[in-house]
């Protein structure tokens, strides 16, 4: 065996490669330099690879790098042997080195074949860039969503706060309505009691007058019964009117405002005479499209108040005048009454507002509320100026569009 191996590696019985090249210097030099350079390169490349692998501990498939390094080194060795065989015919060793190189090459081929599918699955930098961009997009979209969520949350919170405020307002509105209703019931029952009591009284008196055959008393009783039942009916319908006013559809009929005011004034003739008062109406040639019922309500209540709310011992002096103003026709109703504290200006048109105790004058507090609703219903405006103990002026503004003359 050892004899065979010795025989296999012996180099005496062969000719060196140089001999084949007939020792031509240039040819041999070309081969020698080329082989030497290839060898050096094939040694340096694995070293570079080794360095790279050592610098990147996270690198995947380190094995294949090792295999490639060994393969290249082996190839380098065959070139070293070729360089030597130019002069020394060590063809046995060369064959062995080639066999080893062949084995490593084949192993590398197999390993490469196995590694390619895995390598293909590895993301390329372009793919990574793409993935990165997608990731950035995704992050951005997430933060957008987040911002949207925060905004929605804020909106929701604001919405809930608004809702709470709304509910609070509703509750207090309801409370006010309740309080109004309570006072309304009290006033209605109190004021309605008066004519009803008298109806009962006069029915009683009528019965007695008939028993006695007193026709004069009977006549008076019947007349008073009629008056009282009318008053009760008027009051009930006034109350109903007020409560229905929010649904009332105002008519638009051409009416003579001055005539309407004078008609209302007739109602107060008696009271004015009794209290030594005057009512001066200086409204001529004023025709407008309006609701006659509402116009009547407005003047009846304002003039009624002017007569009712005067200082003790002072005769009411009431003046109704008109004035043209840009876009409007104004009607002023001035009195010399007790007036009221200007801070109540905003309150006086609310229902059941009584600024003066019953020691000043009796009133339901509905009057000016009816006025306000009537004014609003016709699209007019009303304003009030007052000086306590001097007098009050209500100013009605009729839009020019409603004015006919």
């Amino acid at each position, binding site marked *: 065996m050892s004899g065979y191996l010795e025989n296999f590696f012996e180099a005496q019985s062969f000719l060196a490669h140089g001999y084949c090249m007939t020792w031509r210097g240039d040819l041999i030099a070309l081969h020698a330099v080329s082989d030497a350079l290839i060898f050096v390169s094939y040694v340096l490349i694995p070293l570079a690879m080794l360095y790279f692998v050592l610098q990147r501990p996270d690198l995947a498939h380190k094995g294949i790098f090792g295999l490639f390094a060994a393969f290249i080194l082996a190839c380098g060795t065959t070139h070293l042997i070729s360089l030597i065989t130019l002069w020394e015919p060590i063809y046995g060793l060369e064959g062995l080195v080639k066999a080893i190189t062949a084995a490593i090459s084949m192993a590398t081929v197999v390993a490469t074949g196995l590694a390619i599918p895995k390598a293909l699955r590895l993301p390329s930098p372009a793919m990574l860039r793409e993935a990165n961009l997608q990731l950035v997009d995704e992050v951005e979209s997430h933060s957008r969503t987040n911002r949207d969520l925060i905004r929605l949350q804020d909106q929701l919170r604001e919405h809930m706060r608004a809702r709470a405020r709304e509910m609070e307002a509703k509750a207090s509105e309801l409370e006010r309505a309740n309080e109004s209703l309570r006072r309304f019931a009290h006033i209605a029952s109190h004021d309605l009691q008066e004519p009803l009591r008298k109806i*009962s*009284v*006069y029915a*009683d008196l009528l019965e007695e007058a008939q028993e006695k055959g007193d026709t004069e008393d009977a006549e008076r009783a019947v007349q008073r019964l009629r008056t009282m039942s009318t008053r009760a009916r008027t009051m009930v319908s006034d109350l109903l009117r007020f409560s229905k006013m929010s649904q009332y559809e105002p008519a638009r009929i051409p009416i003579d405002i001055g005539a309407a005011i004078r008609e209302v004034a007739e109602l107060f003739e008696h009271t004015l005479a009794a209290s030594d008062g005057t009512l001066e109406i200086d409204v001529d040639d004023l025709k407008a499209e309006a609701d006659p019922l509402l116009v009547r309500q407005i003047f009846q209540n304002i003039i009624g108040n002017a007569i*009712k709310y005067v200082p003790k011992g002072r005769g009411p002096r009431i003046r109704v005048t008109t004035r043209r103003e840009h876009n409007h026709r104004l009607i002023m109703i001035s009195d010399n009454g007790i007036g009221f504290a200007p801070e109540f200006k905003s309150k006086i048109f609310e229902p059941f507002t009584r600024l003066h105790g019953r*020691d000043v004058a009796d009133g339901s507090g509905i009057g000016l509320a009816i006025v306000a609703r009537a004014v609003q219903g016709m699209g007019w405006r009303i304003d009030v100026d007052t000086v306590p103990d001097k007098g009050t002026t209500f100013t009605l503004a009729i839009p020019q569009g409603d004015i006919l003359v």
Partner: protein
Amino acid sequence: MLPKSREAMYQNRVMVVDDDEDDIYLMKKALARLQESARVNLDLTFVLSGSDALGEIDRGLQDNTLPDKIFLDLNMPGVNGLDVLHHCMVQEILDKVDVVVITTASDPDTRRAALASGARSVCVKPNSLQEMSELISRLLDVN
């Protein structure tokens, strides 16, 4: 002690303050009926407004002809019943004159206000002649 009838005659000087002509009519009827049936000698004055009542009271103070009783309505325009009561209080005549408030409003607030202003009592206006007669006999202490 004087006989009751003499005392009654002395006491029954009455001022009625009410702007409501129906109630005055009813009261006159009731008083007429009362005078028919009982021995009542009344010196009646009807005053139709609060401000007139103030004048009457001042005149009574001056001439020493104040009434023994005042039947007072509360709900009157201008000077109302409570004003009249206040005037009586200021003039310090409430210990000499009984002021009886007769009003439609029977709610506790009105009653309290009237009593606080010095009214001797507060009565609700009656619903019939019979009730009026009874009320006046009670107030005048007849029978």
